């Protein structure tokens, strides 16, 4: 019996688990919340009165911490972490020559591509939820599991707040997985890990710059970087689904062609390295 794509995917994950560099990004994702909580504790902070509502309530509920961390990390840090693996996942195998090793077994190229794309997405998701989990645990340990105030100012009970925190992180995955899709495309097309990682991060920076150009305000809602904050709709009362749905279809416009192009390149590429 020939192997399933799930088998290939499992081995892609095992390869990621076995590589030291995998832990570089994950380490960043979990250390930053810990540093944040530590610094807040050392300064005996009583709240950032002039900043957003979560910053001003930081010491009142531990659940404000994961929201603040997502606000802080969504724009650049998490896309950077996700692109570390997405940009590397095909290119590294190409330059190491192991791509030819796996492509001369009993799995089709499409299966290998799907497994690699899924593994890169899984890594991105694990980074996001690890960061959220560590921020929640550290926040709750420092400031307790109390009611939390939404962006609209309404108060929600702690269990519901926790649910909202993780739902918000799940919403954030939409643009983050789009970054992964772009990373996988660059990884497949350039065959160069460094170029793919830098290219993916560079694109994010470029879109931030484009957003600052005067006179193109109409374009702004369709920039990928604008979707990084769409999850905030979940933390309003009532829930504002509009930015989330908008984010979903805008991200699809970036992600689907990227993945499809990467798939076609992967299917037809000459594996001449190694």
């Amino acid at each position: 019996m020939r192997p399933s794509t799930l088998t290939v995917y499992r081995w892609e994950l095992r390869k990621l688990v076995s590589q030291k560099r995998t832990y570089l990004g994950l380490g960043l994702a979990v250390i930053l919340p810990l540093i944040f909580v530590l610094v807040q504790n050392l300064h005996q902070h009583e709240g950032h009165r002039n900043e957003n509502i979560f910053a001003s309530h930081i010491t009142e509920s531990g659940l404000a911490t994961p929201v603040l961390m997502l606000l802080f990390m969504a724009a650049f840090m998490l896309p950077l972490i996700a692109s570390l693996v997405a940009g590397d996942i095909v290119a590294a195998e190409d330059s190491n020559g192991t791509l030819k090793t796996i492509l001369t077994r009993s799995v089709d190229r499409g299966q290998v591509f799907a497994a690699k794309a899924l593994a890169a997405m899984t890594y991105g998701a694990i980074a996001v939820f690890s960061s959220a989990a560590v921020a929640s645990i550290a926040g709750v340990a420092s400031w307790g599991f109390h009611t939390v105030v939404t962006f609209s100012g309404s108060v929600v009970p702690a269990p519901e707040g926790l649910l909202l925190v993780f739902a918000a992180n799940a919403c954030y995955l939409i643009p983050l997985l789009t970054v992964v899709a772009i990373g996988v495309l660059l990884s497949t097309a350039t065959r160069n890990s460094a170029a793919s990682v830098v290219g993916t991060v560079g694109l994010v920076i470029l879109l931030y710059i484009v957003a600052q150009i005067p006179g193109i305000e109409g374009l702004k809602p369709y920039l990928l970087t604008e979707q990084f904050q769409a999850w905030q709709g979940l933390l309003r009362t009532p829930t504002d689904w509009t930015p989330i749905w908008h984010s979903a279809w805008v991200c699809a416009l970036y992600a689907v062609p990227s993945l499809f192009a990467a798939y076609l390149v992967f299917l037809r590429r000459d594996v001449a390295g190694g």
Partner: protein
Amino acid sequence: MADAPPVKARGLVKRYKEVLAVDHIDLNVNVGDVYGFLGPNGAGKTTTLRMALGLIVPTEGTVELFGRDPLRVGARALEGVAGFVEAPRFYPYLSARKNLELLAALDGNGAKKHIDEVLQIVELTPRAGHRVGGFSHGMRQRLGIAAALLRRPRLLMLDEPATGLDPAGMRDMRALIRRLADEGITVLLSSHQLPEVQELCDRVAIVDSGRVVYEGALADLRRQGGAGYRLRTTDDARALELMRTQTGIEHAANGEHGLIFQAEERDMGALSLALAQAGIGILALTPELATLEDLFFRLTET
């Protein structure tokens, strides 16, 4: 499909912009062959093997493995086929066993249960738990063979398997290939090491600048190179004069250890009689086939 040859390539062409790496190559590897694919570096051997394994797309032409085209049927074309092109590559951060487990998982068909056996065949059992990153070149080559054997191949495609090995490693690698061939595995051996091919192969294709300049039995090639003889007599000088007048005797000359010349077997009787009638005694007459090296350079150096 059952009777299809292990490798059949027709009009294979690979062009990289202005560079013609492979120029209309035809190959026919039959069941049971130990087939040498010979050529100088850059002749197009590896590119041809990559096309055969579906790793690169031919610009023109087709290649079929047991009647299946990798470009059309994908991984199914590689059923019963294993091997490596250039140096075998593995994940350096995984152990030899983990690498084989990964590849067995990608092979399916219960390949995992053969891991211990193939490690034993290539004598890597004691190092199975060690990371491949710390392996020597020779150990990686052997692990490459182990990885290929996991697939229980009927066709083994090996690209320069002895390159970079020390003399003992080369000897062991040849012995292993010979043993596998004796077990009935068809072997396609790409190499530029002529003694290796001469020792192992029964049929060869010689490529030069992307083109096949000879394909067929090694013995035929050597016969085509001309049957040569070496002769020692009681009077070489007179014998040489006589041979130059003898029909069917060609290229007679003084050699390092006697006279050398080329002739068909049927003309040898007349020569020995003529020498005897002239009172010249034959001390030694030995046939000398052209070496593969002679023929290789004759075909690839213009």
